């Protein structure tokens, strides 16, 4: 389970101590992996503020602007806070309960499997502009230019992370995507979704269709071993083949993420594969490398096996 970062602003030492005790109290739920820190900006999942303190009030204003859930210390009367609240006199256990409740309220519920299949089918339809939203964070898929765009890195990371954890999403076809405010965080569609989906074990198997890539996927990877796998998958999928051939040589979860990402990016040509599929052409090219000394040496240098 991903850790939760809780920030506090304007709280006295007693309140901070109770917040720090929560991790020890929690045996289940999100608070098991709670990290408590002093408010230093928006890099947190939840903020506990004392609105009567000037710094706390400022932190509350920023948190609201960025859609970060906030728990107010003191009597919530007069504040537009309708959820759980805290008072300094409450026990650490009550703090824990209130924080769990606030996190449940703020975080979209986990989507059941059938909702996921709807999500994939919506994402793999070829509408030019699609908005993918998780809570307040949004990413746009622009199939005309092949890029995924988020207003900020934080939004991109939040959506990617939510995908990784299997959280629910709103997917909506939109008429237009604005470039207002510059490029923001921009990466190829397949790169975005591959990084969001790789590592998940519950993705649907992509065995129901023959598969051919129309272009080499633009996936950037920092891990040499994974890079080699993606290169090999890309090369095989560029020639006409059945997805079962990809599954034979690579880890299933990796192939699922790869094929699904390419489908979302619109890089697959299933008609072409159906019509003229030629599994023989998808054979590994490593044998070809061995025939040439210079290429074999380069292959070893690049870590190709």
């Amino acid at each position, binding site marked *: 389970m991903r850790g939760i970062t809780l920030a506090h602003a304007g709280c006295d030492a007693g309140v901070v101590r109770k917040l720090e005790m929560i991790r020890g109290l929690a045996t289940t739920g999100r608070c098991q992996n709670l990290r408590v820190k002093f408010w230093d900006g928006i890099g947190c999942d939840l903020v506990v503020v004392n609105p009567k303190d000037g710094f706390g009030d400022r932190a509350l204003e920023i948190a609201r602007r960025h859609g970060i859930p906030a728990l107010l210390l003191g009597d919530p009367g007069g504040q537009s806070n309708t959820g759980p609240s805290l008072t300094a006199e409450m026990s650490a256990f009550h703090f824990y309960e209130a924080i769990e409740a606030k996190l449940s309220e703020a975080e979209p519920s986990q989507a059941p499997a059938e909702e996921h299949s709807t999500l994939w089918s919506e994402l793999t339809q070829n509408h030019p502009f699609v908005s993918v939203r998780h809570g307040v964070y949004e990413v746009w898929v622009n199939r005309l230019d092949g890029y995924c765009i988020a207003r900020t890195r934080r939004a991109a990371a939040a959506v990617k992370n939510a995908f990784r954890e299997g959280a629910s999403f709103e997917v909506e076809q939109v008429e237009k995507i604005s470039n207002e405010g510059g490029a923001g965080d921009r990466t190829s569609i397949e790169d975005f979704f591959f990084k969001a989906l790789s590592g998940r074990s519950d993705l649907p198997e992509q065995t129901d269709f023959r598969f051919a890539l129309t272009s080499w996927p633009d996936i950037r990877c920092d891990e040499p071993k994974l890079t080699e796998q993606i290169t090999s998958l890309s090369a095989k999928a560029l020639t006409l083949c059945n997805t079962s051939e990809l599954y034979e040589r690579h880890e299933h979860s990796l192939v699922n993420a790869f094929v699904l990402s390419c489908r979302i990016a619109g890089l697959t040509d299933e008609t072409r594969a159906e019509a003229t599929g030629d599994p023989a052409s998808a054979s590994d090219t490593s044998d070809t*490398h061995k025939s040439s000394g210079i290429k074999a040496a*380069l292959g070893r240098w690049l870590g190709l096996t």
Partner: protein
Amino acid sequence: MNTVANYNKLLFGGPVGSGKTTAISSIADAAPVSTEAPLSTGPMGDKTDTTVAMDYSTLTLDEHTVHLFGLPGQQRFAFMRDILVPGSFGVVLLLDASSDEIYANASEWLTSLRGLDSGLKFAIGVTKTELEKSVNFSLNRLRGVVREHTPTAPVLSVDARSAQDIKQLIRVLLHMK
């Protein structure tokens, strides 16, 4: 001794400012021997010099030496392509995403190099995608242009300063049939 027939040359092509010299520097054993001269048109942003004949360096791997050649980006030095293409096993073609000319440049370079050797393999690296000026760059439009010339040339976003990114281009080049 390595000869042209050994296909031990790797070429780096692309227009002025696309990152060829930088890419060679990022993977070569030593700083490339360059033929840099001041840009006759004056500085282009941070770029004040350009390659007029070629860049050259080597990469020693076991008992083999890969000769890395950077082709000059300017059209008037295009005759160097004719000299350097024979004996190469592929071209890393770098294109600048912040340039409005990227699609025309891709077409021109692919036409020219394939005209010299129709069997030449390409790996295309798109550089500078992170720049504000690249906001209108379309990966899919570039893929369309590339597909008109060669059906399966890989197109990848890269940072020419990153050895890892340049290695990935060479890696995909080796995977191409």
